[in-house]
């Protein structure tokens, strides 16, 4: 088995308010995996993502990165994050938004080409000069994905990125994301509360318990690629969803559906 890219050991997070968001979270993410963190709202999965991203510090436990000395964080740009909102700079054009990570991490060499390539990858080549407010919600999310990919990160973290979008747009972005994952081989950790989305996208589904969050089930999702609309309506998809939904209900202490 390959060395994990990232290992969380006994990670806990308690907020100043006393809320215990995470407790004893153990998780190893291997290179090339597409891990879905699945759980109900408020189960601490977003907190887990923020801890991995280095935007929140764990109250206990450790994070170990492959290739980094103990306790050290990966260099800026090795991680890409897509938040729940696109969080674009409204005063900057699409290409300026996508260029931001390169500018902040001083990667000026070949920046124009990288920005163009990232935009092409999400199908927004002709919108480089548009401003965020001129785009639809789905297009803004594509810009956010292009921005996260522009530094060619080893790990892409996504926090319910498509939750606010309509179903048609969500399905399109699911497919675009699978395409990118297949082409670039980037490791992805994808937070979601949708069983269907987890089964459609992930190669591995980690089900989390609520209050406090810890791993309840770890399910390999080895349905073959490429996955497309036919997979989404197949009996196999339904069967896998049933298995995962049962694990989720179990994690929430409810009878299986």
């Amino acid at each position, binding site marked *: 088995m390959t060395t994990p890219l990232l290992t969380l050991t006994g990670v806990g997070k308690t907020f100043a308010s006393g809320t215990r968001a995470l407790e004893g979270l153990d998780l190893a993410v291997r290179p090339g995996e597409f891990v879905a963190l699945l759980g109900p709202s408020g189960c601490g999965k977003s907190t887990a993502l923020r801890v991995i991203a280095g935007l929140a510090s764990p109250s206990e436990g450790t994070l170990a990165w492959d290739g980094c000395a103990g306790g050290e964080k990966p260099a800026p740009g090795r991680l890409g994050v897509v938040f729940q909102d696109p*969080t674009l*700079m409204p005063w900057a054009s699409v290409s300026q938004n996508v260029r931001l990570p390169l500018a*902040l991490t001083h990667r000026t060499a070949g920046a124009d080409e990288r920005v163009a390539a990232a935009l092409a990858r999400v199908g927004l080549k002709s919108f480089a000069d548009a401003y965020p*407010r*001129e785009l639809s919600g789905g297009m803004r999310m594509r810009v956010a994905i292009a921005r996260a990919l522009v530094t060619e990160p080893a790990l892409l973290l996504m926090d319910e990125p498509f939750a606010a979008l309509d179903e048609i747009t969500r399905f399109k972005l699911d497919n675009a994301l699978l395409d990118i994952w297949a082409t670039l081989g980037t490791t992805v950790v994808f937070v979601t509360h949708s069983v269907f989305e987890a089964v459609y996208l992930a190669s591995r589904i980690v089900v989390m318990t609520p209050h406090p969050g810890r791993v309840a089930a770890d399910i390999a999702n080895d349905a073959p690629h490429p996955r497309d609309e036919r997979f989404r309506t197949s009996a196999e998809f339904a069967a896998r969803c049933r298995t995962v939904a049962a694990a989720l209900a179990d994690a929430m202490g409810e009878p299986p559906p």
Partner: protein
Amino acid sequence: MSPTVSRTVRRPEPPSARAANGLRDRPKLGEIAPRVLLPLTALGLGLAAWEAVVKVFALPPYELPAPSLVVETLIADRALLLGSLLVTLETAALGLALAFVGGTALAILFARSRLLEATLYPYAVILQVTPVVAVAPLLLLYLPQPLAVLACAWIVAFFPVLANTTLGLRSVDHGLVDLFDLYGASRRARLFRLELPAALPAMLAGLKIAGGLSLIGAVVAEIAAGSAGAGSGLAYRIAESGYRLNVPRMVAALLLLSLAGVVIQAGLSLVAWLTLRRWHESAIARER
């Protein structure tokens, strides 16, 4: 290609984006015409009535000068009045510019240090709430007259810039702050790429308020100085003409003062529009 060049030679954006959001480039002529013509018609009618009243009742100019006489005075005294207009505009503009630089700098320091803000903010408020007309004589006592006038313009314009910029710097999207944290952004990059652009709409709103106030500050100080016998701004011309019962020149100077206010407001509105037109809700027209 440098970023500046690519911006100036920007090709038109894809039409679908523009159409989808109902953006339009400029209001139609049919909508502008009434907004320009109606006030002008009202002005014409008002001036005609004024002229008629003066003629019919044969009022002497020191009681009420006819509009035609005001225009004549404006032309006859143009060298004197235009010189004064320039002095007043210059004072107001310089006061505004200093207030913009000082207010923005202090707001940035406030955003960096809560301690400094807690220490100094009360005094900024006191500076604002003390009527400038009462401060002017004291300033004239200690400072040479042109400097005292400038100080008055600066004092009243300073606070709106400070208050609005402080608010703007605090209103940065937390998601974007996370993003800048993620990429280990330097303080400098944060300030210039995130905080100042995010604060820009609030800063420009503050600047618009400050623009009107800086003119008031300059006028107040000129009036105060004028009574002391020196000065050459428009407000001084008004005071001086008042002593001489030269009412046509008073009205002519007042007219130019209004014009100065309009010029400042229009200039600042143009700056705000040019800066925000591509991205901020306040500067974008919607189609209904």
